[in-house]
């Protein structure tokens, strides 16, 4: 029996699931005490809440839709802007040198503090949240693209020039593909941060979105709903990260991966 379930790569999923079951069981066990469950919620009630949201009441879809829309918009705008600025500043050395201290300053700024200002500028609709999330996504992508362009192999670059590539062809055929590998590693981080930006924005002032639901629940000490909200958001973030992974796998098939041999 033990041999059958001994931890190995074949039984990996089983053990991962086992960890989850143990956590849920412990959670369930200690929250039998009402004094504890007030602070930690109860797993069964949390899942009831999620069930209600998605199935019986079906009232989460508008909120979730808003949050996802904000996340996607911020992700798209932040990535494209980061890519554009990164390429520009890395390729035009003078502009990069001039703007360097400001970029460093903006990156070290605690940007979540900007949320109230964005609310002032863009109102309480989705755009203030998108703006906040964009500031989080932009810098990650920007710095990775900047780095990616700087790290283009000088030999590959010289080769492309000798093969007759002009400035635009160098950008499209050398700098951009070289930067994409860096961009993709940053996209995994930035898709999570786009979510953080959107939810924090909602949390600080909104009338819709999952962040708003969590804020409402906290107002009434409804810990179960708070946990349910966290779980739903985590699942969504995982899903988006998975999507990035799928696109990455398709676009980056030229990259070497270890263990590409087949055992017969």
């Amino acid at each position, binding site marked *: 029996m033990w041999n059958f379930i001994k931890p190995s790569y074949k039984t990996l999923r089983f053990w991962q699931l086992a960890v989850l079951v143990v956590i849920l069981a412990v959670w369930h066990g200690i929250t039998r005490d009402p004094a504890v469950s007030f602070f930690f919620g109860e797993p069964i009630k949390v899942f009831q809440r999620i069930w209600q949201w998605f199935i019986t009441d079906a009232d989460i879809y508008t909120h979730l839709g808003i949050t996802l829309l904000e996340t996607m918009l911020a992700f798209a705008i932040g990535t494209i802007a980061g890519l554009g600025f990164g390429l520009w500043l890395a390729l035009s050395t003078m502009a990069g040198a001039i703007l360097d201290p400001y970029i460093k300053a903006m990156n070290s700024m605690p940007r979540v503090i900007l949320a109230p200002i964005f609310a002032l500028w863009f109102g309480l609709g989705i755009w203030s949240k998108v703006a906040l999330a964009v500031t989080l996504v932009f810098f990650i992508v920007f710095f990775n693209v900047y780095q990616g362009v700087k790290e283009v192999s000088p*030999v*590959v670059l010289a*080769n*492309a020039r*000798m*093969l*007759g590539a002009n400035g635009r062809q160098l950008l499209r*055929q050398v700098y951009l*593909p070289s930067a994409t590998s860096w961009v993709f590693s940053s996209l995994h981080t930035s898709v999570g941060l786009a979510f953080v930006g959107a939810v924090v924005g909602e949390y600080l002032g909104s009338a819709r979105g999952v962040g708003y639901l969590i804020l409402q629940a906290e107002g009434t000490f409804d810990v179960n709903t708070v946990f349910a909200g966290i779980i739903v958001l985590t699942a969504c973030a995982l899903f988006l990260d998975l999507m990035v992974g799928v696109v990455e796998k398709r676009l980056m098939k*030229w990259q070497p991966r270890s263990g590409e041999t087949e055992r017969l």
Partner: protein
Amino acid sequence: MSTVSSATPTPAAHASVSAPALRFENLTCTFVSREDRSQRYTAVKDTTMSVEAGEFVSVVGPTGCGKSTLLNIAAGLLQPSSGSISVFGKPLEGINTRAGYMFQGDALLPWRNALDNVVAGLEFAGVGRREAVERGEEWLRRVGLGGFGDRFPHQMSGGMRKRTMLAQTLIRDPDIILMDEPFSALDIQTRQLMENEVLELWMAKRKAVLFITHDLDEAIAMSDRVIVLSAGPGTHPIGEFAIDLPRPRDVSEVRMHPRFVELHAAIWGVLREEVLKGYAQQKLVA
């Protein structure tokens, strides 16, 4: 016996009336450290040499003597500190568009498969996709990689990558071919195969070749002329030898030729001292 000239090498024996494919005149190249302007290194000093159209010239010299610097200047990737370069009689400005450059390291675009790498030069020149692919496939077959067009560089062996680079360079049909120790990373068998292939391709087209190597055997086996460089810093040509071995040659057979042995001894006599000098200098720095 070949002549060993000091500062000014004699022009090639078969100098033609037309301008040489490549001509360096009093070339000096000094690198300055970006952090410390006082730290400077003169890689190449007062170098005058030329490569005639259709001539295969090898440059040998001790390691770190500035051979690649010469090649980068010929390619237009590097500006000399003083002196001039002319290409078929015209002074070179910017990238040398008449030259193809086969680099020492991995220069293939890693995000393109073999075929797309080979046709890159045609693509940059605006050749239509269909024609480019047709010519690319033909070149892949010519370098023995037919059917491997969809491999990415990381899926190929070192020899296959070199073949792809060769096809990539030659598909543009350049009038001057610059090669920077193209086979130094290959094992001896692959190397001899590639050397023969390059010779065969060269015999068919007769382009001007400037071939950099640290392997004297390779230089003699392939070239019309071998130029020996002094140890750095301030590298300059110290000897020039016409290689009068019969063509077509097979690089492994030609090594047995008595004339080859003679030439090898003569060139090695000049090169040996420089190699020792270069070695002593590197030890001094370390």
